[in-house]
Structure formats: C-alpha cells, structure tokens
C-alpha cells in the first residue's frame, strides 16, 4: 500500500516549541434551539516534551478539545496545528495517515482489538501503515510497561490495568509526535491507574514524549507538568507543577464560583 505524501510535522528537535496548538478553535454542535457551543474560540499551545493534563467538570468541553486536537472530530472554525500541519486542510485519508504516523491514542475503555494478541495490538498502527516495527524500541516500550510475559495473550485474558498498559505501549510504539490519552485511568482501580500514569510520566521524562491527558481526577492530573482548566468551552485557568491538593482546591473554587 503506497501512502500519499503526508504533511510531516516537525521533528522533536525543531525550533517550534509547541507540539500541538489551537487558534480560535470553535466547535458548535447542532443548530437553532439545539445549538451547543462546545468550544468557544479556544487558543492553546501544548509544549513539546511536556505532560499536559486537561481538566474540567462534565460538559466543560475537555473531551471535545482533545478530539479536535487529535483530528478525530471536525472543527467549526479556527485552526489546529500538529507541529506545523494545519488539520483543517487535510481530507479524511490524509488525516487518517497523520493519526497513524504522528499520534498515539489511549482511550478510557475498549482500547484493543479482541481478536489480536497483545503484541499484535501494539504493532497494529505500524502494521496497517505497512511499516517495519523498530524492534529495539518495541522491546524497550514493552519492558517499560511490564508486559514481557503477556505478549501472546488476547485482551480477554488480560486484566483491565494490563489492557490499558498494552494500549499505552501501542500509543508509544510508533514514536508518535504526541500521545492523547482520554481518561486512561477512568475504569481502573487506583493501583492499576497509578501504574499507567507512572508509565506516561516516565515516557515524558526519559524519552521527551509529548502527552496530552484528559481527566477529571486531581490525583491523575498531579502527574502532569501543566494543567489546563476548561469550563463552558473556554480555558479558564492553568497551573504549572500541579499537586493533587492544589488541583482539587482549584476545582472546588470553580464549583463555588459557578454556583
């Protein structure tokens, strides 16, 4: 399968500081009476090699923001850049190729194809792109997530935590420009959740991976370098070097302000 030329995002060492950025990003659902503004002219920049958490109450637009940034959802107006590639310029096939080459995904649940083994799931994005797997990097990632002896298992034979770790390994295996994680610990107990978060943290520290994580859990947000707070489709605040307590207080403050 021959890939059409895809706009390449700049490599990690490029002078552009932002790995992902949005300018005037607006997303409107429905029309007339049912019109809902999910994102209201959002501007933001996700720093390369940073772990960014996006927080906000239900309905704040945090998932929509992530979907738009990751090229999974169309935008109403504004622009999203992955590296220097403007997403609104791409058609479906180009967008798909961009996703498989430059973006890694970890979803809240149902991350894996049930008919494939853990190993096959991890290499799937490269397999469907027809690319060779970087064996050394694959081994490193597998070792980091601690799945060495589980590679031949099918998803149903893995625990929820193990499944999410396989998903993390898949997200990283193709050395993407950026990894998007949508509530990756939402379905996990706290210990399994911690393992997943530690892995994401280490991928940023040790391999300069850019990670964007949507969460509503202050403890999870505390693993990040920076937290963006969303409310009613707007970025209302941000916090560097967060701790769980400070994030929690911030969230409570929002709730008070809103009520």
């Amino acid at each position, binding site marked *: 399968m021959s890939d059409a030329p895809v706009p390449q995002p700049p490599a990690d060492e490029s002078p552009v500081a932002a790995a992902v950025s949005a300018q005037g990003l607006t997303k409107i659902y429905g029309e007339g009476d049912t019109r809902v503004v999910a994102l209201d002219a959002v501007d933001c920049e996700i720093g390369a090699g940073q772990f960014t958490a996006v927080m906000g109450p239900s309905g704040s637009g945090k998932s929509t923001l992530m979907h738009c940034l990751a090229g*999974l959802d169309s935008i109403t107006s504004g622009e999203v850049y992955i590296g220097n590639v403007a997403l609104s310029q791409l058609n*479906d*096939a180009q967008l798909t190729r961009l*996703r498989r080459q430059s973006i890694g995904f970890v979803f809240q649940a149902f991350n894996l*194809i049930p*008919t494939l083994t853990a190993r096959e799931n991890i290499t799937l994005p490269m*397999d469907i792109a027809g690319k060779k797997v970087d064996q050394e990097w694959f081994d490193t990632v597998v070792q980091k997530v601690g799945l060495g002896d589980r590679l031949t298992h099918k998803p149903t034979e893995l625990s929820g935590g193990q499944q999410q770790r396989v998903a993390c390994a898949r997200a990283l295996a193709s050395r993407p420009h950026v990894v998007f994680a949508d509530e990756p610990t939402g379905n996990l107990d706290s210990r399994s959740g911690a393992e997943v978060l530690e892995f994401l943290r280490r991928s940023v520290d040790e391999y300069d991976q850019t990670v964007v994580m949507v969460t509503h859990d202050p403890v999870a947000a505390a693993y990040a370098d920076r937290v963006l707070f969303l409310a009613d489709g707007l970025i209302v605040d941000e916090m560097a070097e967060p701790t769980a307590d400070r994030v929690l207080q911030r969230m409570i403050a929002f709730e008070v302000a809103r009520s």
Partner: protein
Amino acid sequence: MIRTATRNLLAHKLRLVLTLLAITLGVSFVVGTYVFTDSLNKSLAQLFDTEPADVVVQPVDSAETSGGGGGQAPALTMPDSIIKQVAEVNGVSSAIGSVNQVGAIVLNDEDESVGGPNSTPLGVSWEPNQDTSQATLLAGSAPKGNDQVALDSTTADKANVSVGDTVRISTPLKTDAKKEWQVTAVVDIGLSGGVTVVLFDLPTAQKYLVGEGLINQVLVTVSDGSTPSDVATAINNSLDSNKYTAITGQEASDQQEQQITDSLGFLNTFLLIFALVAVFVSAFLIFNTFSMLVAQRTREIALMRAVGASRRQIQSGVVTEALLLSVVASTLGILLGIGLAFGLRALFDLFGLQLPSSQFELAPRTIIVAYAVGIVVTVAAAWIPANRASAVPPIAALRAESSPPKATLTRRLWLGVATWVLALLFIYLGLTNGTETGVAWIGLSAVFGIIGTIALTPFLAAPALSVMGLPFRGAVGRLAVQNSKRSPRRTAATASALMIGVSLMSIMVVFASSFTATADQAIDEAYGADFTLGSPPQYQPFDSALYGQVNGIDGVGESTFIRATTGTKGQSTFPGYGIDPSVMPSMINFEVTEGSLAAIGPQKAAVDTDLAETNGWKVGDKANVTWRTGQSEVEVVALYEPVLVFTGFLTDFATVRDWGAPAGQDTAIYLKLAEGADAEQVRTDVKTVLDKYPAVGIQDQAQIKADIQDQINQLLRFIFALLGLAIIIAVLGIVNTLLLSVVERTRELGLLRAIGGLRSQVRRMIVLEALMLGVFGAIIGVVLGVIYGVLMQRSLETEGLTTLAIPVITLIVFIIAGAVAGMLAAIWPATTASRLNILKAISTE
C-alpha cells in the same frame, strides 16, 4: 408484550429489512413453484375438458404408444372405409374421419420450424362440425383443397401471419416441400406451447400427412336417445376387435390427459425438490439471522430479566416479534411468488420447453403452505436462541462484555458424525445394490451428507480459514482472517447456505460431463458411418423416397436406412428396428455376444443383452412381445450389447413393418463416403437434396457429439437457473451476516479508524471476510458435489454411464464465482463499516 415487540422491530430497521427479505425470498420460491405447477395442471385439465366426439374409433395400439399431443411414435392409421362401417351402426348419427399426424412443419425464412427445433409440428384434419371440434374458429373460414390451411393462433403468431397471408409448410408425404399455402382461418386449439398446429381439410390431410385412403380416427356423434357408451359397445361388436377399438369421448380425453400429466409429472417433482432446497436454505438464513439478533440482545434480555421479566415473558416477546415479522414477510413472499411463477414460465419458454399456460391458479393449499413455512421456520429460528439467551442468569449476562452464551459444540460434532455415518452406510448400500435402488440410496446419502457437512462446518471453519488466509499478509488480511474465525458457528452457517447450492450444481456438472464423455466414447467406438440423416431430437420418420435420392449422389459409398416401431413386454417399453444386416454393421459397430446379426429375418430378431437378461431370453428362445399392431412370437437369433440409440429388437424391414413401423417411412439414413470422395462436396450435395425435406438434417460424428453436448448444456442451464435462487438467498445470507457483524463490531471499527486505519482498509477487511466466506462455502460445496457426482456415476455404471469425467475448469469457476458472490455481498456492509463516525463508534455501548 406486543408493544415491546413492535418497538423492537422498528428500532432496528436494517435488521428488519434483512430478515424480512430472507423470509420473503424463501416463501416466494415455494409459492412460485406451486402456482406454476398448479396453473400448468389446470391449463392441461382445461385443454382436455372438451371431448373430441361422443365416440372415437381408432386402430388398436397394443403397445399404447400413440401420442396425444405430440408423442414420439406416429399415430397408427386405418383405411377410411371404416367410416362407412361405423356410420351404419345403430345409434350413430354421424361419423367423420380424422387425421392427426406429426410432421407438418410451418417454416420460417431460414427453413426452420417457426416453433423452434424442439417443438412438435402437428398436422390435423379440419372438423366441419364446430360444436364438437376442439378448434374454435377465431377468424376466417374453413380451409378447402390443396392450397389452403388453417393455423392455430399461437402458430400464426409465431409465423407472423394472419388470415389471407401465405405460409410455407413442409409435410411428411408430399415433400415437394416448402409449398406455399394460403391461410384461410386462425383457430384456438388450446395447445399454446411446445406444438405448432396446421389444419387441412380431410382429403388434403390424408394426401399430405398419412396417405390417401387412410385416417387415424373416426369421430362419432350419437343420435338422440343413445348413450356414448352403448354406441361404443355396438361399434366394437361390429368391427374386428383385434384391429379397431371404439371408446367414448370421455375416455379418449381422459387418456390424453393422463398421458400428458404422466409426462409432466417429473416436472412437478423436480420443481418441488428445488423449492425444498430453497426453503431449506432460507430457513438457514432466517435461523442464522435471528440467532445473531437475539445473541446481540443478550444484555438487553438480561436487563429485562434483572428488572423482573420472567423467562416465559422474554420468550413470548421474541416469539411475538418473530410472528409479526413472519406474517408480513410471508404475505410479501406470496405476492413475490406469484411474480416468480410467471418468471418460471418465461424461463421454460426461454429454454424451449413451452408449456400450456392459459390458466392461473392460486390454490388455498399454496397460501397455507406459504404461511406455514414462513411462520414455523421464523418462530423456531427465533425461539431457540431466545431460549438459550434467557437461560443465562441475569447478572452473568449483564457483566459479560456483550458476549452471548456459547453453547457447546460437542452435541453438534456428534450429530455431524452420526449423520455422516448414516450417509456412508447409504453409500455402501448404494454401491452394493442394483442400479435402480442404488441410485436412490446414493441420493438419500447425498441428503444426509449435506446435512452432516452443515453440522461439521464449524469444525472445518477455523483450519480452512487459516489456510485460506495465508495469501493475505499484512494487518488487514490478518484482521479479516481473525474476524472470520471469531464465530465458527456463524461462519459455518453462512457458508453452508452457499455450500448447498454449489454442491447441487457440482453434482449436476459431474453427472453431465460424465454423460457427455460416455456418449462421446460410445460414438468413437461404435460409430462407423460418415453421415447420419434424420430429424432429431424426436426422430420423426420421413418419406423413404429420400433414401433413393441420396444413395445416388456421387461420392456416397455404402448406405442404409432404418425403420422403427415400439414394443412392450411386461413393464418395459423398447424400440424395434428394421435394419439391413448386410450393411448396418459397418455403420454401427454392434458387439454381438451370441448368434449372428445375419440370421435376422421374418419374426427373427437380435435382442440387446440387457433386455434379454431382464426377460430371461436366450438365443433360440421365442420371445412373446406386444408390438403396436399386436402380439407376436419372435425368435431370438442373436444378442448384442446396447449401443448408442440401439436397444431392443433388430429385425428385417418386412417384419418391422408388421410390428407397426409406418409404411414407406424411414427413421434414419446412414452414409459412408466412397473411397477418395470429398466429404464437404457430399455434404453439400446431400443438403441440396434435403432442401425438399426440411425436417431432416445431416450430421457427422462431430455434430452428433456437439448435439448431445448442446442438449445436456441446455438442461444444465435450466437447472442452474433454478438453483440460482438458492444461491441468491445464500448471498443475501452473507450480506446479513456481515452487516450484523459490522454492527456488533462498531467500537472495534471505530478504534481501528482512530489509530490510523484508512477507510479503504476497513472496506478491504470486510471484503476479504466476505471473500473467504464465499470461497469456503464454494469449496466445501464443490468437494461434496464431486464426491456425490462420482458416486452417482459409479452407481449408474452398469446402466451405461461408463465414463467418469470431472469438469475441473467448471468447478474452479464455481469457486471463483463463490469469491465473486462473497465480494458482491460485501459491498453494502463494507461501505457501512467504512463510513462509521469514529467518535460515535468508539463511544457505542
């Protein structure tokens, strides 16, 4: 419960349409078959409703071979002096002669019969009395004399003529052929298909059809106060009962109807077998679809159970749903079936098997069977999986990741093995028993073999798919293989539907090729003549003057002709041929096992070995045989192996005449080329002579072979057209399975797209799955078909089907067709899958 059921139905329009379609198609085929055959029978009944006369007098046909509307043997004749004798009998009001003979061919511009090569060209005498005549005058006036004819309306349509126009007609006797005749009348004779009818006045009919002074029947009207049966008895008493017989008109029309119904009886059986196949395959599709639907709803069912619904309520809910659906679908099926009946009629016309079709009959039985099939199958198909689903404890089902309870396959394995053991037993019986019961055993075994294979396909599916998946490298191919293997039961059921159709087609082609190969071989071995002249396919006799004309042609070496009649002994009917024993053996290589052909003579004949064995005749025995003209004692002087068309008795010309062969008419002429003669020149010269005999053709070896091949192919195409419906239903089954599996896998497909799967890749994955399903079904079908095709041939080996031929290329085409069918079936599901909205798909529950 009804409300929940209707809501459930409407909530999933796609499923609704597919299931509806499955039931509708199945029911429609049953209805189509019934309506078609009922209408045919009713048309026939109406045809023979009118009695030809109060009493009919005709020559005694001891062998009972006289064809009513178009039998093979020409009707026997008697002198027309009989008319006068009959007229003098008490109670007879009027007696007129009637002629009814095959061989009056209405010609088109190419000098071929306007009815097509397979039609029977009837020539009959015009009956002046319109009250008793079977022909109703539509336009014009009665034909008179040597230049006028009437045509039946269908024939007139085919010849594209009306009253006042002229037509060219070739007749059996006066072959100053292609004589122009003026059409003075168009009549309705009720025989619309398969025959052409020309009517002459009586003297002309005698002159051109049977010979001057001869007639086939005397039609009698009884005087007031006499009953037909009394008059018939009186006539019988006054005539030589060995030669002539009088029957009432009622008896005559009953006899004719019986003959036609007998000859079409196979058709009803044949069509019903196809209807059964179609019902079986649709039952499969319906069953499969419902299993999937109910399995999908396991969680929903569990939730209902958890909030307090009883098992009984769940079951009755599903059954109500199935009932609603099946009633609607069966009704649609009945409507579609009526359309299909007309389609079948057109199909028969297309293949030259024209049938009377004046009537339309939708019997109450048809409607009852249609609803019974549609409703019973659907409800059973719904109840079984619903029962399975509701048996699961509610909490377990709710917890399960939408995985339906997996019933163990062990029982199925045993069922499959047991069925196959029976199938093998029947094969053993089939191969060790005699031919007649042997074939029946093999047929029974085929039914069990197919059912057993259906039971075993889930076990074949995984290994077969692994092998088939080998060429598909890359992630997409691997995913497709894995997906197909996911539910062996479903894959098996879907492929099985296709398998049934393909296996039947494969049996047919193996059988047909073996038949053709056997015939070819027989021709190679036994056929010594260079040319055969005759009028296939029915070999109606022609004027023997032809022989003298071709015999004199330059370049013709040895030549001879044959004449034929029919005889019976007990249950068996066989031909009797008159041959010239000094020349004939060089034309046909008779393998004489005992005695000598040269010994045949007056009431001395050679008999084929099969017939001799059946009746215990040996050389020197006297065989007591009933010929058309009566019984005779025939001395058996030789035994020969049946060869090509030659079976039965071979004797000299005088004797065969005695046995009822028409005087002065030959059945075939055989020619050999003189040394050094130019075959093409001879052929051209013979053809020039044949210009005056349009019914007679010239064929060499290759053409005879091609002719046999053509006839077999025509039959095959016809069978394929019927089996095509089963294949269509099977393809629909693949569509159904794939669509449902796409719906089930929505999240997975969304994920695949999110992490970088292109639309085209998703599409390709689904197409590959369908392709494997199609090929899998086709391969099992072909394998099964070849096995039973070979067994059929083996069991018929003693019956003369000596050569086995397996048409490898055709079978490979079947497998490729399976792949194509699969890919066609994938179009809709693949498009649906590739157009899924990623975000919605991922967040689907």
